[in-house]
């Protein structure tokens, strides 16, 4: 029983960066914008949060800085794709390449720095309850934060008027524009939100999960988050399920090593990537379902007078 609670805790911890990044990207894509720069944005969020945490000794301040950095980077993407109507695929790729380079550059002096990261909760009387303490009350604060974020995104998108407008912009920007909604401004907000979430996911990795900075430490999680949004057919609930599924896959690799399965570590490390390809393939097989669920204007630029 104790073992199960520990496994659940580890799965949640490993899935949480994906929850942040994928929920952010989901909102961005719901507005009709495809931002492939999640990986680069997460890395910049990670490095900025780590540097701020290391120099101020305040990891929460670092987290906030990571979110701001993520939003700032996605603003560059927004200017290029929304104001200048650049190709979203190419610009997203550029953002990822740039983010990898930028984070490696500014993070060089921090590679072997040790910080006092954000620890999992320890509420006396609650966290040390047998089984339920570990299952419910002893996770990283980020895990609870990601669940709150999930609730907010779900509520915003499907239970508020603003969420309805955002979805309308993603489905038919021309109609939304004709009714008088500021399509470009709404898309900017969605892109900024996505960037801040990706930055938050990176910050969680750097100041809580590991907590350290290494070059390219997200190891493809940004791309997996993008695949998750497709896998989830643009539904927040399924993002949550998918993220924890990937958390479990990541964990399987460490568990196998721990119990001494004689498989080379490199082959086990392939699991999350192979799993991503597998689930993406399975879910994409139904082309009609993808077409029904994907925002209709996803990836297409919008020019009000063109």
């Amino acid at each position, binding site marked *: 029983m104790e073992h199960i609670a520990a496994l659940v805790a580890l799965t949640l911890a490993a899935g949480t960066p994906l929850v942040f990044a994928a929920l952010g990207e989901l909102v961005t894509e719901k507005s009709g914008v495809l931002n492939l720069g999640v990986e680069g944005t997460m890395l910049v969020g990670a490095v900025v949060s780590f540097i701020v945490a290391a120099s101020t000794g305040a990891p929460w301040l670092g987290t906030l800085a990571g979110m701001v950095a993520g939003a700032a980077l996605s603003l560059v993407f927004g200017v290029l794709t929304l104001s200048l*109507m650049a190709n979203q695929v190419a610009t997203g790729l550029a953002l990822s390449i740039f983010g990898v380079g930028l984070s490696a550059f500014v993070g060089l002096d921090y590679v072997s720095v040790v910080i006092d990261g954000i620890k999992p909760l320890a509420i006396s009387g609650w966290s040390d309850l047998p089984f339920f303490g570990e299952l419910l009350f002893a996770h990283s604060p980020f895990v609870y934060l990601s669940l709150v974020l999930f609730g907010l995104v779900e509520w915003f998108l499907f239970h508020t008027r603003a969420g309805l407008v955002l979805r309308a912009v993603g489905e038919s920007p021309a109609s939304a524009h004709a009714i008088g909604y500021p399509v470009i401004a709404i898309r900017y907000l969605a892109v900024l939100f996505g960037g801040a979430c990706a930055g938050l996911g990176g910050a969680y990795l750097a100041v809580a999960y590991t907590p350290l900075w290494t070059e390219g430490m997200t190891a493809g999680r940004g791309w997996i988050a993008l695949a998750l949004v497709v896998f989830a057919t643009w539904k927040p609930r399924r993002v949550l399920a998918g993220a924890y599924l990937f958390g479990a896959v990541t964990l399987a690799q460490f568990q196998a090593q721990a119990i001494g399965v004689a498989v080379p570590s490199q082959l086990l490390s392939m699991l999350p990537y192979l799993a991503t390809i597998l689930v993406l393939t399975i879910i994409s097989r139904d082309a009609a379902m993808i077409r029904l669920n994907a925002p209709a204007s996803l990836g297409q630029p919008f020019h009000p007078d*063109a």
Partner: protein
Amino acid sequence: MRIRLEPRAEPSRLMRWASPVLAVTATLGVGFVLFSLLGKNPLQAFYVFFVKPVDSLYGVAELLLKASPLMLCAVGLAAAYRANVWNIGAEGQLTLGAICGGGLALALQDGGASWLLPSMILAGALGGMGWAAIPAWLKTRFNANEILVSLMLVYVAKLALSYLVHGPWRDPEGFNFPQSKMFADAALLPNLLAETRLNTGFVIALAVIAVGWLFMRRSMIGFQMRVAGLAPAAANYAGISAKRTVWLGMLISGATAGVAGVNEAAGPIGQLLPSMSPGYGFAAIIVAFVGRLHPLGVLLASLLMSLLYLGGEAAQISLSLPSAVTGLFEGTLLFFLLASDVFIDFRLRVQRRPVRPAAGGRPATAGGTG
């Protein structure tokens, strides 16, 4: 007064080629500011970065050597991107090329035969194609996004290579370092220029560029691929199979990336290491765009990007700047390129605020797309 973007009636041919020049200039501007902020004399830094690496014959040879894998990867990517096939996993296909070609070299250590090197290159091309065939198949058969699949396979390929050089292919006499045996002489690309590292891999790259140009400009299949990229609906109507376009784009770009991988293994490296490329497969994406998805443009852009790599190394040695500055420049260059590319299809129009409200509608309607 306000400035707005107005669609051009026709894309500007001038801007198509002026845009990379603008982007390079703007990137240099950023470099100037960056070097100043880091407390370096920007002019001296520019000299170290862009001139010193190529002020000797050895330096020029290094420039061409590093440009070769970029040329190979980017010319294939250019063909794919023209057809709207988004292969971003060239880095993985390059790695598979190195594994297949290098594996052959290791298996035939004693074979001094003259056919060894050509077979290695063929094996590398097939390896890259095989790796690219996975996203092509998943895309055409299951509709899976080729961007994400090809990228995931980069991680898988790199882990596979790491496993091989840590495990079964590790040199038993290599002091436990994760590396394979050195290749036999017959498995190494012949040197082109004495006292330098430049080898025949550069000639192969040039030949592939030439073939790429002929293919895209003069062949029916190349034409069909370009049509499929420009106007998918028209291509469909003309009976050009969308699936075949995906297969062609993926296989071509996979093959050239695979050859780049063999060239690295059988050229400057001479064995298999845990990493065979400092990100050439990703840099080639930028090269393909900066080179306007045109084989000749790719050639020029490869030289530029190669200089960025050399400059990064030189800056690390002489200016004690981190070589990661190269990655920063690469990303910045692509951003500026995408920004200035806007002016291929749009122009800036400065509008004065109308004095009387009645005149308000006129300028807006004048710029109709026609």
